[in-house]
């Protein structure tokens, strides 16, 4: 198997602007920790009322980006807008409208019980819906008498989800929300998120490195690699544009350079090749046929496969 080292962005950018209005907008967002670059010129747009999945490997900058949106971390350059507000100037107002599940497993204080934490939060959010909080706690099996310091990773996550949802915020920022959850709990959480979305019409920006877990609720995808947003598109566009082509080509066949530049992945032994190409299918098919290859099969990529392809791809630069 070979991995392409070409530049597919020449014909049509993979990270293109998404239609507004946007719940989250970043322009040239850059964050450095000393010499280490966590985010580099990120232009992210999460349309209002949608579910935006931010995918990336561990350490790609997903948590840093979410922390920046909450104004928990100050960027070095660039602009951010959350629900029309600049978090650096209106941090408190932004946080009042956001349900945030942080990357760390602990929320609140170790000595606090889960029930006390929810009471504590209810004082901070005038929109806190106690009945909803109780219902969520029952559904996610959050026991109020348990001490936070003694909760398992999964129990902590469930408590954080209750805390994030119970004030019915217009924006949810979820950092690896299914981390530590067993399959049943994960399924329940995704069901709850779907219900919450339908109920409130909120926007969800969820970061994960396990995209298959959130595929059923995802509408837009952004892919962060080494702090750069290398792809951003609605899922239907991603499915339509990023396709796997099974080709039969004569010995020594070479594709036209501009088409080869759009191939994110190339594999296959001998004359039977499998290329993953970003582009309009009829146009790509016609170009391949025109160059002498026979297109045997074209298939869209699953979200997980698409993300893996985008993450593995390295530009020649």
């Amino acid at each position, binding site marked *: 198997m070979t991995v392409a080292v070409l530049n597919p962005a020449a014909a049509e950018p993979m990270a293109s602007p998404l239609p507004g209005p946007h719940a989250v907008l970043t322009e040239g967002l850059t964050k450095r920790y000393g010499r280490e670059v966590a985010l580099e010129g990120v232009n992210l747009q999460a349309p209002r009322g949608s579910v935006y999945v931010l995918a990336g490997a561990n350490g790609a900058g997903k948590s840093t980006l979410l922390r920046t949106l909450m104004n928990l971390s100050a960027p070095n350059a660039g602009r951010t807008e959350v629900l029309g507000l600049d978090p650096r100037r209106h941090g408190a107002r932004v946080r009042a409208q956001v349900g945030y599940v942080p990357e760390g497993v602990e929320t609140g204080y170790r*000595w606090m019980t889960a029930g006390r934490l929810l009471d504590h939060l209810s004082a*901070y959010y*005038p929109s806190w819906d106690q009945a909803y909080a109780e219902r969520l706690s029952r559904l996610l099996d959050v026991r109020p008498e348990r001490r936070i310091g003694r909760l398992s990773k999964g129990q902590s996550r469930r408590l954080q989800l209750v805390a994030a949802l119970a004030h019915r915020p217009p924006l949810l920022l979820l950092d690896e929300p299914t981390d530590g959850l067993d399959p049943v709990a994960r399924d329940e959480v995704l069901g709850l998120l779907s219900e919450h979305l339908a109920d409130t019409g909120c926007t969800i920006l969820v970061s994960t490195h396990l995209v298959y877990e959130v595929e059923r609720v995802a509408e837009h995808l952004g892919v962060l690699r080494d702090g750069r947003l290398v792809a951003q598109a609605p899922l239907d566009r991603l499915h339509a544009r990023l396709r796997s082509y099974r080709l039969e080509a004569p010995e020594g066949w070479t594709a036209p350079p501009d088409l080869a530049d759009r191939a994110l992945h190339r594999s296959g032994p001998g004359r039977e090749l499998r290329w993953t190409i970003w582009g309009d299918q009829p146009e790509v098919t016609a170009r391949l046929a025109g160059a002498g290859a026979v297109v045997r099969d074209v298939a869209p990529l699953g979200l997980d496969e698409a993300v893996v392809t985008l993450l593995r791809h390295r530009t020649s630069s």
Partner: protein
Amino acid sequence: MTVRDSSLPEASAAPGGWAVFIEQVKTIGLGLRREGLALGALVVVVTVIALNDVLEDGAQLDFPTDASFVLPLMALLAPFAVWKGERLFRGAHLWTLPVDRQQHALTKMLAGGVWMLAAAVGMILWLMLLAVATDGAIFGPHDRLLLTGPITDVVQPGQVKTVAWTTPAWQWASLFTGTAIAYLLSSAVVIGLRYPLRWVAGCVFLLTFLSLAWSEDLFEDLLEMLVMGPVGIDYVLSGGAEGLDVAVRLADGQRATAWRAFPTAGPWALATGFWFIVSAALVWLAAWRHRER
């Protein structure tokens, strides 16, 4: 699917300042239960020991002047308990909440101050109770020795007289103002420094090193200026009463403590005002480090 109650406030609404303060008072109170129990246990032990001494010797326990030093010492430690578990420089829980960060830090500090002053009141009442139970002096006049002449090896009867001293109101107030200033100063250190204990230990180490390497008297000079200077801590805590104390040997060979002069309200007010301004400014600066930016 649930239907949202239309009577609920909009999600964008931010909490009121008073609601946040009350919540912080509650949260800190619950968080300090362990420390409260430890303090309670200490009070019980000291009470038992003191009453035992009283029963054995028939002594009276006056309201101790040392309280003006013990309470501020407690206040220096209190912020470490108030801010425990809050990783202020590494994504504190406090910062994720919908309140301006600088304002939130100050609110939590004030909420902790409520408990600090409550503890101070509790301690003062306890000491008063001990005094009442043993027929000791609290408010009423009690005898003090006052030097009327120069300090000599042996104080002659004409150089000292006994006066009936009644603790003035400002000296009672100094119990609280001294405690509040100590709490503010310590809060500034805990809020504003990433590693407060390391800073405190580092400063002590540096001063000790300098005093050894440069001048043996440096540490003592600094300490004297800090404690006995024109706006020194002694003036804040007792109106200079400690500095006015002098150990004397009376003509009959007995050793006693006498005052060189009466402590007065003026220097206390000046020092208290100065330290209030300094400590409040330091707390504001410490909280400012965590501002929204």
